[in-house]
């Protein structure tokens, strides 16, 4: 009797406490990077204030944290200082680093119901490869992209090529490139055939070539790389040959940032770059252009790229739940469509593409569909433990081969040995 009364009292107290707690606003801090031009930052601020208007119990402090690099640096520093954000958008490839630093928690605990699991299955599998490891989901795709080929239809017509047919494979890209490369009277090139930028992070576009050549650069546990595989060497040889043997691409390291501008200026007839530039090219290209999947070798292929949502350690259960609810809301078709159209990022769920606004957008601007359709052939972006270090080693090797300091084989052998030394402690 007494006992049951006591239990009731406990239950009642617990109940009051939980209602009291839920009546309090849940505060969330949310870091986000901006990696493309356009209205990315404004759109995120707009979406978070919409969410707060609809959910008065939640306060979200959306903090613009700079580039991807700055954002991960800030999130790690803040966490080490005992003041982590609850939610952050960070490169999908930084997953292993964040796990290694013991800073994030998987989403699975907060997505336990069957309905939630079905929701999780609604993302394109190509995007989930970089978001899951060891059977757990650490990232929810948000601002995701993939590289595509843009071509100048007028330059194609001028070179006697069908302006509506992009190169379908590696050989065609060289063949078309030779026709498209123009020289002036003194032998200086005025228009290159193709441009594959290689400054900063050459590994990303290079991964397009390796995927097409049928080889994967790192295992899904993130602790073994495959840099010196003969097929990787072959892919690098092809990239080097584009400028050195076939002379259809400018020699040396090619700047990322200047690539769209070079395309607009007619310095190159084709370029490989991210779909994140789609809106930019649409607004600024003074000629008719086309967008195609990257050319194939053994198969079609491209890496994915961009950022995921991560849940940080150190938050209360309630904060995590609120963060997950927010992520679910922002990934819902209406919000995701708004985000995709404002930036050019690929909407990561099929249901977004079913909405009327997205259908109208795609009908008006069919190139927007190319990236989505390419996802079928896309693979995880190169990601390992100590990711920045390992991709840094790989980037140096690529740069050394592109600038002719080392042969592709030599450069990749050295990179593999260095990556081994870093990764061996994670097996």
């Amino acid at each position, binding site marked *: 009797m007494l006992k049951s009364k006591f239990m009731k009292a406990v239950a009642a107290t617990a109940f009051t406490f939980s209602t009291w707690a839920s009546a309090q606003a849940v505060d969330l801090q949310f870091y986000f990077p901006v990696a493309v031009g356009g209205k990315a930052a404004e759109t995120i601020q707009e979406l978070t204030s919409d969410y707060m208007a609809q959910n008065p119990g939640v306060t979200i402090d959306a903090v613009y944290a700079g580039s991807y*690099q700055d954002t991960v*640096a800030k999130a*790690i520093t803040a966490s080490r200082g005992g003041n982590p954000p609850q939610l952050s958008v960070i490169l999908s490839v930084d997953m292993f*680093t964040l*796990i*290694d*630093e*013991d*800073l994030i928690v998987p989403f699975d605990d907060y997505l336990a119901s069957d309905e939630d699991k079905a929701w999780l299955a609604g993302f394109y599998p190509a995007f989930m490869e970089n978001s899951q490891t060891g059977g757990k989901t650490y990232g929810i795709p948000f601002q995701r992209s993939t590289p595509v080929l843009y071509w100048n239809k007028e330059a194609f017509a001028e070179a006697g090529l069908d302006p509506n047919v992009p190169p379908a494979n590696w050989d065609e890209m060289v063949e078309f490139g030779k026709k498209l490369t123009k020289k002036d009277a*003194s*032998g*200086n*090139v005025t228009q290159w055939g193709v441009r594959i930028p*290689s*400054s*900063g992070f050459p590994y990303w576009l290079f991964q397009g070539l390796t995927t097409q050549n049928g080889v994967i650069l790192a295992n899904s546990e993130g602790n073994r790389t495959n840099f010196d595989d003969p097929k990787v060497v072959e892919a690098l040889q092809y990239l080097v040959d584009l400028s050195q043997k076939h002379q259809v691409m*400018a*020699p*040396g*390291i*090619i*700047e990322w*940032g*200047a690539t769209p*501008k*070079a395309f607009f*200026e007619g*310095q190159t007839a084709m370029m490989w770059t991210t779909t994140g530039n789609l809106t930019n090219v649409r607004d600024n290209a003074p000629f008719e252009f086309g967008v195609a999947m990257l050319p194939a070798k053994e198969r079609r292929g491209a890496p994915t790229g961009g950022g995921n949502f991560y849940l940080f350690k150190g938050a209360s259960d309630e904060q995590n739940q609120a963060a997950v609810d927010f992520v679910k809301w922002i990934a819902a078709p209406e919000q995701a469509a708004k985000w995709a159209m404002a930036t050019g990022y690929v909407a990561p769920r099929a249901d977004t593409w079913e909405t009327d606004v997205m259908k109208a957008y795609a009908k008006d601007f069919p190139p927007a569909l190319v990236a989505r359709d390419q996802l079928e052939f896309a693979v995880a972006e190169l990601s390992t433990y*100590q990711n*920045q*270090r390992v991709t*840094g080693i790989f*980037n*140096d*090797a690529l*740069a*050394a081969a*592109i*600038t002719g*300091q080392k042969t592709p084989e030599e450069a990749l052998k050295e990179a593999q040995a260095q990556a081994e030394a870093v990764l061996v402690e994670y097996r």
Partner: protein
Amino acid sequence: MKATRFKRDWIHGWLLLLPAMVFLFAFTHIPAVTTLINSFYSTPRGQRPARFLGLDNYERMLADPVFWKVLWNNLWFALGTIPLSIALAIAMALWVNDKLAGRGFVRMAYFTPTVLPLIAVANIWLFFYTPGFGLFDQLTRGLFGWPASNYLGDPDTALNAIIVVTVWKEAGFFMIFYLAALQAIPVSLKEAAQIEGAGRWTIFWRITFPLLMPTTLFVSINAVINSFRLVDHIFILTDGGPDNASSLLLFYIYETAFRYWETGYAATLTVALLVLLSLLAIGQFFLFDRKVHYK
């Protein structure tokens, strides 16, 4: 009586020093000591705390080819920037110290690069260097019909391209010191020399330059420090590439600490930088200082 008086003065003295000391300790001395301690430990990661490594980090540094490469780069960078920016600064100061039309405007023009933030400057130069349609390529094509260049994307020229930006940025700043020093030189010395029949070159070499020596010492110490400190533009222009061809020691430290998150090893590299800088500063003061003052 006297003792309490002494004590009061003593307390006052320390109180006056305190604010500056707090900041000096918080932001200079304590971090420097912590860095030294951290350089003997491994990088803490998640559930693995830092463990004592002794000299392992230092052995790794000596065996690290990238470390030696950035050190050589830094040497070239110093050799390329210091003499050139000092020579330019003296030339510019002499030029704008004379009476010439629009002197104020020319002084301002020379000083402008100093006022601009280095990141903004780097973005402008990035456009100058852009292959094909950048300013330099448009000029060289229009004037000489040269083919497109790729100064930043070629390992042989990337570091030189960065040196040019740095000299452009620094020379105007050093000019200000020389200008002030030139104005402090009594005109009577120059007039006396002219009466003796000395030419312009002799006057510069025998009178002006020796009297500028204290300024040259000051400026050269600053230039040495800057050659290890100025890396902001590398982030924009080359990101250290291609294959570390334009990476400098401080840039490599940043990369190791905040891109690779190997803070233990980065601390070791920082110690190397600190030792190098102290040696250079001490060397300059002790070897140089005796010959600086004109007697």
